[in-house]
């Protein structure tokens, strides 16, 4: 969406394999924050944490395992031979673990949480606020770091599979309790009902 076929293929081809572990994909970005805007960012994050509808919209991004935004005000200093940094900006680090396709991932952010995209990256340089997703994709592709090592404890699973499995676990505990002492006919009926009721989780 929003990108010429050639560029779309170029980005797809260039997504580095070191950023993947099975189904899991690592994204690591660092954006310079505009002067004076880190307070705005912190407030927006604070609001999102405390206002359930905003958090609820993030939960609709069903392909996310874990993600975090981190404001880097200064780089930790350990003494020589490290040279102290003198940076003109604070930085917004975005670290995400997701599954699916890079292009769809960005599109989904745009379609599910467009306001939050603006609320967050609108405080950073380079973010093409109000422009089509294609411009954002170009920026993200430029900003993305490649992992040298990436690990997932359950690489075979998508985030949706994990959430389904955890919900299924709860239902299955109830099913087991209900079926204790059941004869074969009652058990078969109960199992069929359990499977039918849990179809979307399987």
């Amino acid at each position: 969406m929003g990108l010429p076929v050639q560029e779309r293929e170029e980005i797809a081809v260039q997504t580095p394999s070191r950023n993947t572990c099975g189904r899991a994909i690592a994204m690591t970005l660092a954006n310079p924050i505009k002067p004076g805007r880190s307070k705005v960012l912190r407030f927006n994050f604070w609001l999102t944490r405390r206002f359930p509808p905003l958090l609820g919209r993030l939960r609709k991004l069903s392909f996310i395992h874990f993600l975090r935004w981190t404001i880097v005000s200064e780089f930790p200093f350990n003494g020589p031979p490290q040279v102290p940094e003198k940076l003109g900006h604070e930085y917004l680090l975005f670290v995400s673990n997701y599954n699916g396709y890079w292009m769809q991932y960005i599109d989904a952010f745009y379609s599910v949480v467009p306001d939050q995209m603006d609320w967050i990256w609108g405080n950073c340089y380079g973010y093409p606020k109000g422009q089509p997703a294609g411009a954002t994709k170009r920026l993200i592709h430029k900003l993305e770091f490649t992992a040298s090592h990436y690990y997932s404890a359950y690489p075979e699973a998508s985030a949706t599979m994990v959430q389904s499995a955890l919900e299924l676990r709860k239902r299955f505990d109830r099913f087991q309790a209900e079926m204790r002492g059941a004869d074969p006919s009652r058990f078969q009926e109960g199992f069929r009902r359990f499977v039918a009721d849990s179809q979307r989780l399987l």
Partner: protein
Amino acid sequence: MPSKIGQAYTYLALTAIVPGRSQELREVVEAFPLASESPFARVGRVHFARWVIVPQLVEVGPPPEVPDRLNNEYLLFSTDVDGDLEPFLEALRTQIPEVMDAVYSHCVAYPGTADREAFHRYFRHNQIETTFPFSAYQDATVPEVREALELRRRLIDLAVRAQELDPAGLQEAYRQAFAG
């Protein structure tokens, strides 16, 4: 504490690489086996982890942004783990000491795993507190996620087989699969 999310902890550190050693460090980190053979698999409590070498910040423009230049290269370590920071750092120190030493000996002022206090102090000093963490399953531990995924796999298998089994056969198959 923003780094805490549900039962999990999101840790991120930026450690300066000793000048001239980033290529050597890259070779060490990229040589580690992946997936279930990754060193992080031995730590047990790790959901996700990454090491990223940050050689320089990317210039995004357009003006008035004035690009920054880093004076050092950095190793970014980001991970999502069960529990709290202290036991996680201790697990890194005691369960994969040779890995931590092989990696962080290329970073400025790394004290090594032998000195417990200094090791913990180093990773606390270089930690960047998370501003906003998010996970859709923040209360599930790694063993709980794995156990649930295995249960789901066995349930799918039984649901498929159930179509060909009579009531007694289904109950017996269920007992074999789950009652163990």
